[in-house]
């Protein structure tokens, strides 16, 4: 979710009135925005925007526009948009696209903005819009990258071509020497951040003007000469390149509307493609490409739970900046040029909801009767816990992620550092944040022993247990893994022996009315001859015994310790007579 910084004064100007803080805070909910930090001594306010499908709100102008309209201002009408049927006149403002870009970075859009000399606040806003649009909406410049240039220093037509990365060079921003495109990828900070988007192509995107002066290496870096915009400049060329044309056109429209609101005149640019695009071969931008969307008032009423007429819908949508009209009983919405988030009528319903005002909906109680119920595992687990608490056990709650060392190496009957145990039965994370959280636990016992390892100061005896989940590999499941609900318990005490743990387990199973048999087992975590398999209905349900002294040493535990682990699912199937 993007966070933006904006000048309070500028926001007030766009809203058209100075709002009290509490009013502003409440009004921001219309834009799903929250104040993150109130303004500092420079008048800078930090705001968090929650709707990732409304990039038009990520700027002072866009946020101010939404609030102004909501508070009764006119819906702005922008006259610089072309459609495929009605392109605007572009004069010499043409961009020629090279056929070689088709499979690299095929689309470009842009316009010229001229007007008042740009002030610090507006410049700051444009740069921030560029960053947020390209990072959050443009998938970190993969789908949208944007460049701003001083248009009075350049000459149209501009050429967007696939260039030889070794033979093409210019002086990029923040550098004083000419570099090849390939050098920029490896040596320039922006190249290291964004170069990977195009690094694998034999040729790379490159923009230059009619005089052969470099504009930029999209999506990486601008030229230090034409691409260094400063306070006081009054004529800008904005271009956006990317891989999804409608995403690109929307971003282009957002920036154009913001600059228009800031007092600039927007002059369209004509893009000449040598290949087909969704918008055609000759495309004039900024382009209005949205199609009308419809909602039936009855659907809006049903979804929102309040009676709404077509007129109600039209009025409420108007507060959100959407021009709508009735068409054959339905409400037909013409999305604003800076929005493209109406995928389904429910998206229109949400705008109606916000227009209606959240506080104006009366909450009502659910009407249907339904039966509440816990899972069978939860019910049995609670019974198990009750018996274990009666037997003197303390319940523990552990995390499910841990290290190879704890979950595997320390559980071997060899010194931890010498373990070469195989982890193929465990669920390993491919992108762990740290080796401390690299595996899902395959057993509850390491969790319980981790508690023993740090609890020697607690009065003995220690009787602890947890019922929780473990995950192991299981080829029988489509996921190749299986999650089990498991009970683990540990007894640590001078006199803890095989018989101690067996007696506890047996008593527990007795009160759960589960018949169990015990059978000698070999499990290297336990002392040979002091370990038994727990069989319920003839099937293995668990294991118990005296932990091997080497395992205890691996954990740094110097108290005899016995343990048991039982699969709750196995107990459950027995209990329900399956």
């Amino acid at each position: 979710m993007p966070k933006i910084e904006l000048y309070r004064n500028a926001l007030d100007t766009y809203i058209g009135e100075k709002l009290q803080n509490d009013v502003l805070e409440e009004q921001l909910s219309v834009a799903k925005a929250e104040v993150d930090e109130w303004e500092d001594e420079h008048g800078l306010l930090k705001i968090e925007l929650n709707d990732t499908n409304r990039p038009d709100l990520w700027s002072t102008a866009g946020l101010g526009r939404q609030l102004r309209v909501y508070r009764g201002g006119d819906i702005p009408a922008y006259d610089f948009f072309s459609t495929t049927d009605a392109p605007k006149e572009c004069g010499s403002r043409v961009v020629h696209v090279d056929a070689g870009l088709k499979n690299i970075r095929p689309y470009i859009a842009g316009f010229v903005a001229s007007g008042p000399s740009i002030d610090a606040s507006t410049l700051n806003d444009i740069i921030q819009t560029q960053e947020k649009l390209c990072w959050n909406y443009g998938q970190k410049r993969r789908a949208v990258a944007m460049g701003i240039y001083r248009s009075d220093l350049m000459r149209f037509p501009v050429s967007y071509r696939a260039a030889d990365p070794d033979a093409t060079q210019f002086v990029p921003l923040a550098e004083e020497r000419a570099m090849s495109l390939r050098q920029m990828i490896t040596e320039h900070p922006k190249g290291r951040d964004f170069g990977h988007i195009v690094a694998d192509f034999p040729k790379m995107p490159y923009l230059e003007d009619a005089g052969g002066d470099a504009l930029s290496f999209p999506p990486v870096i601008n030229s230090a000469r034409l691409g260094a915009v400063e306070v006081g400049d009054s004529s800008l060329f904005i271009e956006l390149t990317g891989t999804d044309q409608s995403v690109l056109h929307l971003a282009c429209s957002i920036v154009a509307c913001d600059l228009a609101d800031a007092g600039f005149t927007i002059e369209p640019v004509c893009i000449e493609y040598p290949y087909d695009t969704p918008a055609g071969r000759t495309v004039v931008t900024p382009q209005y490409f949205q199609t009308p969307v419809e909602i039936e008032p009855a659907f809006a009423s049903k979804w929102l739970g309040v009676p709404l007429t077509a007129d109600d819908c039209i009025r409420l949508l108007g507060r959100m900046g959407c021009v709508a009209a009735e068409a054959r009983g339905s409400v037909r919405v013409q999305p604003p040029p800076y929005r493209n988030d109406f995928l389904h009528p429910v998206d229109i319903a949400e705008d109606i909801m916000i227009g209606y005002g959240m506080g104006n909906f009366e909450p009502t109680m659910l009407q249907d009767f339904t039966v509440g119920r816990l899972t069978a595992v939860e019910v049995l687990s609670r019974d198990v816990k009750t018996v274990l608490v009666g037997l003197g056990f303390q319940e523990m709650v552990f995390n499910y992620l841990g290290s190879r060392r704890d979950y595997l190496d320390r559980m071997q009957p060899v010194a931890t550092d010498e373990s070469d145990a195989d982890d193929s039965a465990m669920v390993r994370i491919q992108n762990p944040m740290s080796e401390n959280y690299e595996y899902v636990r395959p057993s509850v016992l390491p969790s319980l022993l981790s508690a023993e390892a740090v609890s020697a100061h607690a009065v003995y005896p220690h009787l602890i247990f947890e019922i929780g989940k473990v995950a192991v590999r299981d080829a029988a499941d489509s996921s190749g893994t299986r999650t089990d609900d498991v009970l683990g318990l540990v007894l640590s005490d001078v006199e803890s022996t095989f018989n101690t743990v067996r007696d506890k387990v047996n008593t527990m199973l007795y009160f759960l009315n589960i018949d169990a048999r015990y059978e000698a087992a070999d499990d290297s975590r336990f002392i040979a001859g002091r370990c038994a398999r727990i069989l319920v209905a003839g099937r293995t349900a668990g294991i118990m015994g005296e932990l091997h002294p080497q395992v205890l040493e691996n954990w740094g535990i110097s108290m005899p310790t016995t343990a048991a682990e039982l699969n709750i699912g196995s107990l459950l199937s027995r209990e329900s007579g399956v």
Partner: protein
Amino acid sequence: MTDIDIRSFHPLEIRVLLHFSEASELTVPEMVARVGLKEGQGNQVVSWLAAKGLIEESSRTARVFYELTELGKEYVDTGVPEERLIRVLEKDGPTPLPALASACGLEMRDTGSAFGALSRVGAVEMDSDKRAVLIDPAKADWVARVRGILERAARDGALAEESLDDAERTAVQGIAKKRGAGTVAFRIVERSEVVYRFTESGEAVRKAAADSGLTGEETGSLSPAMLRDGSWKRASFRSYNIDTPPARLIPGRRNPYAEYLESVKDTLVGLGFEEFDGPVVETEFWNSDALFMPQFHAARDIHDVYYVAEPTHAREIEQPYLDQVAAVHENGWSTGSRGWNYGFDRDFTRRLILRSQGTVLSAKQLPKAKVPGRYFGIVRCFRYDQVDATHLSDFYQTEGIVLGEDVNLRTLLGMLKMFAEEVAGATEVKYVPGYFPFTEPSVEVHIKHPKLGWFELGGSGIFRPEVTAPLGIDVPVLAWGLGIDRMALMHLGLNDLRELFSNDLERVRLRRRK
């Protein structure tokens, strides 16, 4: 001392108080002699009465005692080396030293020094054949004296120094040491014998004891025998001092965090919700695709979810859900949506990950859900986050859904109000528009909690038809999630999420509800 609760005194104290007068010399040996206490009991009574300030020391005399060591006890049976030498020579006649040592059961070194001591006084000598010969045992007069002392000590215990005459004292000092007494027969012990007297308050207590009618023979514990034979009817029971600090007991106990989660589950069941659960390993399909999050969505970045290393992909995704979800992403399928308009990746959708949001299970519940129906789960989720006081690599999320022909935004708000009041104990509720990729509209609920003040309790919304229709549901579905961690922390008086999963047994044992 105005309030004397004489019944709270121990019977041994009462007996001592009754047997001594103001003027008596109060010593442990006297208690043994006059009251019939054991020495240990006498020492206990002294320490109890002194601790209560009822008696004080009036004089202290240091006395020296000789106590038999383990070796000394052995000498009582076998004799000191000199005695043994004399005994063997009397029996066997002249004997070379090595043979003598073995007949005496002594080391050669000890045999040599015993022979030396005896030969210095002329009790023995060495003949020309290098044999030890007995001359006059009476010249070693200390041997008999030592025998007498050993036997007295064996009979009477420690010997007081003043009970020995000069010759005996010289003899015993030769075979006694203060420290490191393992190699000699006696250990020298210095003991102080203390005489106590009653303090002023002690005197008051003594009189109160005398007037109380107590005998010190009162019953401590009621026994089964007393109940059987009726002797409890004649017994008088000693009072307990209720001011003694109670002992710490360590019971078996539930974990308070788990109990809290259970209480939330119980509340939800009470509100008509049925619990769901599921595996921790999920596919991208269920974790995000089924929730209509486009595969290029920012939240689906490699840095936000944990990927399973092996196997990397599930074998298959259930049909017809795969086809329907793919279609809804690509073109909206038959939902009336225009979809996300991109090519759905059917390999990526099988990618295995650790569940990153509880909403997965809400989605998985849809194909098997009843209408009307209410479902919930409190399930472990996994996030690619640096672990700190407010972030864990795995944690619980509380999520659920409500299906019904007539559910809508207003019933969603009513449900949130119900949660705010029943689950969180809120006093005020506020709703604001929110954003989630899978609900439209989306609503955040903020509550005013009596202790925590205003905070966001959770997020909710009505599932988009692009989520429900491909999973076979054609009625509106309310979806909700509650952030109950803050309440859990408050409930337990904690402020660090890691504490909820603590492996420190002592802390878990001591933790309780606030």
